């Protein structure tokens, strides 16, 4: 950890390309996973919130922020989400490219991100709290553990105190909110309530095309991404059929009584 406060802080924001949140997913016929071909993908919604927070921090702190870098670990198409993040206001991107459709587990992502952090020396890493595809909710905490940095998961409010070189984070816990403060460098994961991400404007989308994206492979970074978990099968959840519509409150009450629900 740094002995004194940096004069400019560097932000790193990891993002993931996932199936779009509005898509109704289908399990493939071989039961090995879900259909991804021809399915709309976009940036994981929690990661959009992370990018937005980084951009807002710069808008608030102006010159105190030296850079905002976005990083993704994924197949060739993951570049798309880097471009989206760059269009939202990030400066440069890093694409750690893996094979198409290869599943990269959270532990591997965390190790890859650690290698990037060791290289880039950011002061604050802001991640989404979970990816909406694997729903693991692990990468932020794993990265914090590997780096031995403090972590504030599920943030709904983030403030930077420059004098103390500290962040103050309100985090969503079961039953309410908890406020933590921690010295930088630190890890924050975003909850839905943190902010409302902006839409990239057309001029910014055009500008983003010119922003630099560095490419690496996990091997370049010396990271082993071999999976630890074998997916035996993937099946749809037990179907739940809608039942009857009733036409009055009395009918509803009698149905519920009949069913023993009240």
């Amino acid at each position, binding site marked *: 950890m740094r002995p004194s406060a940096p004069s400019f802080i560097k932000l790193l924001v990891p993002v993931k390309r996932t199936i779009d949140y509005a898509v109704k997913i289908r399990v493939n016929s071989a039961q090995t996973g879900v259909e991804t071909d021809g399915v709309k993908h976009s940036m994981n919604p929690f990661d959009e919130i992370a990018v937005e927070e980084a951009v807002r921090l710069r808008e608030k702190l102006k010159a105190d922020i030296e850079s905002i870098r976005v990083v993704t670990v994924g197949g060739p198409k993951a570049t798309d989400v880097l471009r989206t993040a760059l269009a939202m206001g990030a400066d440069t991107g890093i694409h750690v490219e893996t094979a198409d459709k290869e599943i990269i587990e959270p532990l591997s992502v965390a190790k890859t991100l650690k290698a990037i952090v060791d290289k880039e020396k950011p002061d604050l890493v802001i991640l989404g709290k979970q990816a*909406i595809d694997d*729903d693991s909710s692990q990468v932020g*905490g*794993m990265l914090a553990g590997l780096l031995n940095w403090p972590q504030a998961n599920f943030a709904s409010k983030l403030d930077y105190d420059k004098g103390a070189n500290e962040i103050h984070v309100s985090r969503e816990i079961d039953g309410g909110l908890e406020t*933590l403060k921690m010295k930088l460098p630190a890890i924050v994961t975003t909850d*839905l309530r943190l902010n409302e991400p902006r839409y990239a404007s057309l001029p910014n989308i055009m500008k983003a095309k010119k922003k630099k994206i560095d490419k690496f492979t996990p091997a370049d970074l010396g990271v082993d991404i071999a999976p630890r978990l074998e997916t035996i099968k993937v099946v749809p959840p037990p179907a739940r059929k809608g039942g009857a*519509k009733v036409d009055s*409150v009395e009918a509803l009450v009698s149905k519920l009584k009949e069913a023993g629900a009240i």
Partner: protein
Amino acid sequence: MATRAGLRCSQTALRLARTPLQSHAIRSRAFSSSKAAEAAKTLLYIEHKEGKLNPGVYNAITAAQKLGGEITGLVAGAEADSLDAVAQAAAKYPLSKIVVMSADTLSHSLAEPLAPLIVALVQKEGYTHVTTAHTAQGKNIFPRVAALLDVAQISDVMQVESEDTFVRPIYAGNAIATVKSSDKIKVFTIRTSSFDPAKESGEGASIEKGESGQVGKAIAEWVSESLTKSERPDLGSAARVVSGGRGVKNKENFDSVIIPLADALGAAVGASRAAVDSGYADNSLQVGQTGKVVAPELYVAVGISGAIQHLAGIRDAKCITAINKDPEAPIFEVADFGLVADLFNAAPELTKAVGKK
């Protein structure tokens, strides 16, 4: 159609009457562990607050029991009195022993001091499995533990198939994956709504003091918390839940329509993301992929359309009832009973009707 739905709910009700706490969710079967070379040795992190066990602990105990072998409970915290109370309460459950770790830095269950402590304990005692409930606390602490142990974590486990194979939901519960871990130590968190709460065993686990020399440095500082105080049942474990959505239109209506209905039913109050975002209800009441996953006997969705993310949180409810004025709302595709009506007439009428009985 009507009778079939009615029958489905009533069969459920009959079964519930026999075993009131049995979960309707995919349930784990006890499996034969004879093929496993050695018995599982499980460390169960026991979540607690103000001298009481958090409700998810009981479900996590049941999940840990599926592994066979012995289960050690870990109670960690700062105040000796409150830890004693927690350990005594936990000792009534089917655990082999309880280790109590006390250190000032362990107050508020922060991940930075706790994770190294759990890791040291696992390495010293040779635990094969480490588990807790998939709650805000479990999600905060366990990835740090897994990374320090250099193992993958299996989150939100719905079913324990064997000592290395687990079932968990992906894509907001729209697919169910069975995964097999090749790690030596299995770190996993439990979906509480998928396991019945454990019953007291009456045997009394032994309680011992652990060495807290391995506590990590406190590198984050706890400042404050604000909890939503409520006399109502806890949302995560309530037998009945009444939730309001965007259709409720404002906070005043939420308070005057949803809450009285919940109270009349003795239910916990929930909300859709739209209702929470619009400020009708507190964030902690959100039900869905990013909020709480619930599996009550009765779920009443009022003014909720039924987006994928919301359905992810209620899929395992035994009986879903929806009140919505839009007959095309997706919630009706999963509701056992649907009432197409204006909630502002129907909900108060329902409140009166159930309040009378």
